[in-house]
C-alpha cells in the first residue's frame, strides 16, 4: 500500500459517515452507510455490524468490499479495498467499538437505533487517495510533544499522594485537560475507587465504579483505552450513574453531566491493571487518536510508578510521639458497620471497605492504648484488616482515607510522619460504637 492506514486515522473517528460497497454473488452492487470504520492495526479495520443487512449478507457470500472514508476538515476522500475476515462479538475490540458507537449514535440522533451486534474485521488490501490534488487537513497538535510536556510537569514523585495529584495536574499542563480523575483497582479486583480528581466542584475521592460499569469500568475490565469523541446519551457510557443508591452509601463520581469527549486509559504495570485514568471535555473531538496513544503510554508510566512507590520500604526509625493535645468539645459519634466496614461520623457516611476498616482499627487501638503513631507494616500484618497478601493497595487506601477525612471530618486527621508512617490526630473526643 502506498498510503499507510495509520495516516487515515482521523478519517476513522466517525466524524463523517463512510460508505461501504459490496457485491452479491450475482454481481449486483450494494452501497450502504457504515456507522463506524474502526482502526484496528496497520493492516486491519473493523466495521460495526448492527443489523442483518444486505452488506452483511453480501460479505458473507463474497468477502470483498470497498469502503470510502472522508478526512474531516479537508473532505479528502479515500477508498479502501477490504477483505472480510471474521466477526468478533465480545472482547476488547467489540467493547471499544460498542462504546464508541454509543457516542456516534447520540451525535447522529440514532441512539435508539444503533446497537452493536459484532465487529466485522477486514484486512485492508489497498488504499486510494481519491483527491490527490487537495491539501491534507492541518496536522493536529503533536501528541508526543504533549506527552513530553506532561512528563516534564510530573517530575520526580516521592510518594503516592504526590503522584496522584501531580499526575492529573500535569495533564492540564501537557494536554490542556481540565477534567480528569484517577481510579485505582481495589483488592477484590471487582471495582475501582477514586483516589484523586481534577477540575470538579466536589473531589469525589472514594467514589467507586464497578468493573464493566461505564467507560471507566469497561476500560478496566478489558484493560483497553476507550475514547468517545461525542456526547453520548447512552447511560452505559456515562462514567457512572449519578443517582446514588440510598440503600448503600455511595460517593458520587464527580464527572461532567454531559461530556462531549471522554477517554479512559488503563494504568498498567506489565500485564497487571493498577487503575484507570479518565479524562473528559465539554468539547467535541477533544481527544485525537494520537492523544489516545500518548495517554496509553502515560497510563503505563503511571502504573509502573504506582507499583514502584508502593513497594518502597517504610522508614525504619520510629518517630517520637509529640505530646498529644487533649481533644476538646462535644464528642463525635463514630459508628462502624462490620458487614461492609462502613464508618459513619455523627450519622454522616464517611467511608467503607478497607479504608473504613483501617480507620476503625486505628481509632480502637488509640482508645485502648492511647497510641497515635502507626506504620504501614503493622497494618499489613493486622489480621483485623481485610487486606490481600500483596498489600500495595494499602498506601492508596490510606491516601483515600486521609483525603476523605480532610474533606468530611477534619477533626480526625492522619498526618504523614515519614515513609510508611503516620499519626492519628484528633481535635474532638470520640464515641465509638458498632452497629
Amino acid at each position, binding site marked *: 500500500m502506498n498510503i499507510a492506514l495509520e495516516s487515515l486515522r482521523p478519517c476513522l473517528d466517525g466524524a463523517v*459517515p463512510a*460508505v*461501504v*460497497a*459490496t*457485491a452479491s454473488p450475482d*454481481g*449486483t*452492487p*450494494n*452501497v*450502504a*452507510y457504515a*456507522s463506524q470504520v474502526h482502526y484496528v492495526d496497520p493492516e486491519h479495520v473493523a466495521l460495526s455490524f*448492527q*443489523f442483518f*443487512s*444486505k452488506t452483511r449478507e453480501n460479505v458473507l457470500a*463474497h468477502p*470483498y*468490499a*470497498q469502503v*470510502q472514508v472522508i478526512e474531516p*476538515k*479537508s*473532505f*479528502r*476522500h479515500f*477508498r479502501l*479495498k477490504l477483505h472480510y475476515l471474521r466477526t468478533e462479538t465480545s472482547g476488547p475490540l467489540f467493547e471499544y467499538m460498542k462504546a464508541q458507537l454509543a457516542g456516534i449514535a447520540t451525535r*447522529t*440522533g*440514532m441512539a435508539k*437505533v*444503533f446497537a452493536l451486534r459484532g465487529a466485522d474485521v477486514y484486512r485492508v488490501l489497498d488504499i486510494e487517495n*481519491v*483527491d490527490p490534488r*487537495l491539501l491534507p487537513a492541518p496536522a493536529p497538535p503533536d501528541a508526543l510533544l504533549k506527552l513530553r510536556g506532561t512528563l516534564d510537569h510530573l517530575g520526580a514523585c516521592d510518594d503516592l499522594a504526590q503522584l496522584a495529584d501531580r499526575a492529573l495536574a500535569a495533564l492540564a499542563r501537557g494536554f490542556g485537560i481540565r477534567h480528569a480523575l484517577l481510579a485505582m483497582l481495589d483488592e477484590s479486583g471487582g471495582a475501582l475507587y477514586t483516589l484523586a480528581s481534577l477540575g470538579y466542584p466536589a473531589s469525589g475521592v472514594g467514589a467507586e465504579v464497578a468493573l464493566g460499569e461505564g467507560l471507566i469500568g469497561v476500560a478496566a475490565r478489558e484493560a483497553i483505552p476507550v475514547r468517545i469523541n461525542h456526547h453520548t446519551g447512552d447511560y452505559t457510557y456515562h462514567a457512572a450513574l449519578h443517582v446514588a443508591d440510598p440503600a448503600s452509601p455511595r460517593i458520587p463520581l464527580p464527572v461532567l453531566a454531559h461530556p462531549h469527549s471522554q477517554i479512559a486509559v488503563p494504568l498498567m504495570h506489565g500485564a497487571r491493571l493498577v487503575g484507570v485514568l479518565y479524562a473528559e471535555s465539554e468539547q467535541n473531538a477533544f481527544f485525537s487518536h494520537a492523544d489516545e496513544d500518548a495517554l496509553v503510554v502515560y497510563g503505563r508510566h503511571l502504573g509502573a510508578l504506582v507499583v514502584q512507590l508502593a513497594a518502597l520500604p517504610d522508614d525504619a526509625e520510629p518517630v517520637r510521639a509529640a505530646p498529644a493535645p487533649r481533644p476538646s468539645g462535644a464528642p463525635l459519634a463514630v459508628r462502624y458497620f462490620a458487614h461492609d466496614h462502613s464508618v459513619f461520623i455523627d450519622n454522616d457516611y464517611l467511608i467503607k471497605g478497607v479504608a473504613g476498616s483501617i480507620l476503625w482499627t486505628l481509632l480502637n487501638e488509640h482508645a485502648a492504648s492511647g497510641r497515635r503513631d502507626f506504620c504501614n507494616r503493622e497494618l499489613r500484618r493486622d489480621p483485623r484488616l481485610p487486606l490481600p497478601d500483596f498489600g500495595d493497595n494499602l498506601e492508596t487506601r490510606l491516601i483515600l482515607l486521609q483525603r476523605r477525612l480532610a474533606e468530611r471530618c477534619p477533626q480526625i486527621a492522619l498526618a504523614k510522619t515519614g515513609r510508611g508512617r503516620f499519626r492519628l490526630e484528633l481535635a474532638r473526643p470520640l464515641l465509638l460504637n458498632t452497629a
Partner: protein
Amino acid sequence: MPTPLILTPEQTAFLQGPLSMNVGAVGRDGWPCVCRAQGVVVARDRRSLTVLLSASRGRAVLEALDTGSAITLVVSRPATHATLQLKATRAVRVGVSTAHRTTSARCVAAFAGELETLGYAAELKTTLASVLPTDDLVALRFVPEIVFDQTPGPDAGRVLART
C-alpha cells in the same frame, strides 16, 4: 413485459433535496466500487434518472459500468438520515449539458448548506465545491428497477417499489 417502475412524487422531491449521493458498481474482477455522485436529475416521466459524477474520481465505477455492471445509487439526507437506494441492471452514459453542470453545482451547494446547519464549518461550501468540481462531469442515465428504503435501522433494505 414487467410493469415499469415510476418514482413517487415524494421520492422525486426527496431526490431533489440536499443529499449525500454515492454510486456503486461491480468491476469485471468482482470488486465492488463506489464513488461520490454530485447531482441527480429525475426525468419528467419519473421512470429514469440521470446521475452526475466526476470522471476522474469515479474511474473504477465508470469502467465497471462501461463493461456491463449493474448500478446502484444511494442518496441520504444528512439531517434526517432518510436514505433511498435505487438499482438498475445497466446505466448508459449521456452527454453532459450546461443544465447538468448547473444541477451539480446546486446539489453540491445544497449538500454543503445542509451540513452547515448540522454544525460543520461554513468553509465546507468552498471545500466541497473544490472536491466536487463540475469540470469533468459524466452523466449516467438509468431506469430504476428496484427502490429500497435504506434509512438506518432494522427496516433498512425494505423494498419500496420494483418493476
